[in-house]
């Protein structure tokens, strides 16, 4: 794998891997599993620094990430994927609990005008750690962007926003984020609104989960939140056909390889954990471990190709769906294998494994369920594109 990787990417990988190793060495994943607010005690770590600036363009960052001869802002999809994969290897939940742009930054970058981008990036890159959220999913509707029901109602020279969002990472702890809502009927009536969580009428509560507690998924209630036109991303500069729905689709497509990297980081960590616990593994057990190592390596390589294609302007929804689906299933498969290979009672005697086992279940539905991804793969097969490089 390294042979096909540019020096710039290899240097970045090594730099991030060092930050990720600190998470594992300190056992911070388990700490956040017990108490997801524990992230507040670790904001000086390099992993947090990476997440805070990840995808913020260099012109907004006072102290950019420098490694070797290179400077990074991770606006490249490939470099974003590598960064997130390595941090997820350190701990997925910790990485997701960090302040920074995460998904909302991609939406602002895709839709925001100069003023909106400047305001957003300067705030997220500022001295104070800023958590953000990406509010698309709704109760009973999932992440079907065209069917969302949160509504913008005109009021004077602005709007009022009402509705609910569910399963939104970090929303209960965030200072700002993006909410997708409906200004008018139909797919062209969807908007993306940049929202401050201090606004009257905004309320978010964490949802207790059995796994990936660091993601701090939350339920948002929007009760007549005042929205000015300048909060609607691209309102002054983009036609309605290029705004809300386009932003949702572009963000999800840009982020799916990143989510794939997240799943693969956890999968690699689990397989390495098995190797550490059973250094002398032999026979059929070793073959089973090697099989999953091969599968992880294969989809990892494919994911880098998909991310590189996105950087080159070739966004292939079927390929993106393919890697996401494979990685999500592999992450679960790796934890099931680990529980098997590490012996009876391993899920009650090995806290790290137990946590990974619970965490891995989240990838199936994050950034679109396996069913949704399969439909995209089918479309690729039907069009003759999926099995073509």
């Amino acid at each position, binding site marked *: 794998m390294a042979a096909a990787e540019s020096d710039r990417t290899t240097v970045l990988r090594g730099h991030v891997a060092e930050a990720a190793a600190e998470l594992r060495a300190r056992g911070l994943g388990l700490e956040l599993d017990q108490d997801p607010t524990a992230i507040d005690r670790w904001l000086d770590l390099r992993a947090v620094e990476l997440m805070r600036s990840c995808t913020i363009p260099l012109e907004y960052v006072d102290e950019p990430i420098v490694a070797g001869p290179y400077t990074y802002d991770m606006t490249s999809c490939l470099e974003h994927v590598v960064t997130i994969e390595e941090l997820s290897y350190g701990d997925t939940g910790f990485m997701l609990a960090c302040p920074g742009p995460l998904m909302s930054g991609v939406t602002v970058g895709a839709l925001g005008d100069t003023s909106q981008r400047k305001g957003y990036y300067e705030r997220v890159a500022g001295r104070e750690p800023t958590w953000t959220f990406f509010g698309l999913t709704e109760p*009973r509707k*999932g992440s079907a962007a065209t069917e969302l029901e949160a509504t913008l109602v005109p009021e004077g020279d602005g709007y009022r926003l009402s509705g609910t969002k*569910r399963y939104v990472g970090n929303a209960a702890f965030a200072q700002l984020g993006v909410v997708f809502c409906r200004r008018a009927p139909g797919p062209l009536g969807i908007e993306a609104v940049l929202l401050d969580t201090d606004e009257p009428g905004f309320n978010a509560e964490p949802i*207790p*989960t*059995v796994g990936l507690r660091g993601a701090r998924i939350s339920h948002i209630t929007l009760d007549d939140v005042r929205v000015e036109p300048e909060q609607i991303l691209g309102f002054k500069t983009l036609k309605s056909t290029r705004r809300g729905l386009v932003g949702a689709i572009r963000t999800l497509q840009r982020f799916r390889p990143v989510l794939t990297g997240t799943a693969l980081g956890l999968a690699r960590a689990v397989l390495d954990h098995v190797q550490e616990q059973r250094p002398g593994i032999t026979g059929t057990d070793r073959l089973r471990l090697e099989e999953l190592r091969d599968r992880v390596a294969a989809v990892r390589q494919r994911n880098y190709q998909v991310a590189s294609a996105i950087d080159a302007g070739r966004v292939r929804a079927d390929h993106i769906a393919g890697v996401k689906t494979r990685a999500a299933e592999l992450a679960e498969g790796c934890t099931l294998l680990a529980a098997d290979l590490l*012996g*009876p009672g391993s899920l009650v005697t090995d806290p790290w494994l137990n946590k990974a086992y619970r965490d891995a279940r*989240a990838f199936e539905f994050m950034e679109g369920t*396996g069913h949704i991804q399969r439909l995209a793969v089918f479309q690729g097969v039907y069009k003759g594109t999926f099995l073509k490089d």
Partner: protein
Amino acid sequence: MTTLKPPAPAAVTGLPEFAALLDGCHEEAAPGALVVSRGGHTVASALRLRTGVPVPGSSGTLAVASGGPPSAGRELVAFADRLVRLHRAAVHAVLDQAVTRLGERTSEGTSLLNRQLVQGSVADVALALSETQDLLALPSLTAAGLRRAHADLVRAGRTVLKLYGAHSLTSEGPGPVLYVAELLGNTYLHLGSEWGDTGDGSS
């Protein structure tokens, strides 16, 4: 193998109910005691196992204790049989709830139950449940057969959870019950647990 009536799916509505049914499995397999795995671990409700530590992800309803002498082979096999039946009831309950839930949800003007991928998943889980039921009815089912049945139920459970999306990961959703069922299998039915076909009541 003699067994009592397996739990009804409708009885497995959440972690507290599952924990109570698990305690019942212990009582049926080892009256007045708790069954200790070959590895020396005991998992039961936190109410029943007051000396244990909470099982992560069980919201404090289950506890685990380690270091005890393993139970006799006959008790282990009897307990394994009941665990698989409890696991099956849990998957069945989650499937029933999924069908109800999906029937109440619409997308693009039609019920989610009209989607063929959804129908296929429901059918796959139902087929697994049917096969497990038939396997458990075999008078010759061995301990190894119980382990295979557990593995089948793990796969079926993971398939049905996919019908719930993110709700499957929430503490109030169906995920925790199936997670603890998997954990119990890892503790008591593991391939490496060497409790094997003891010939003392496993068939």
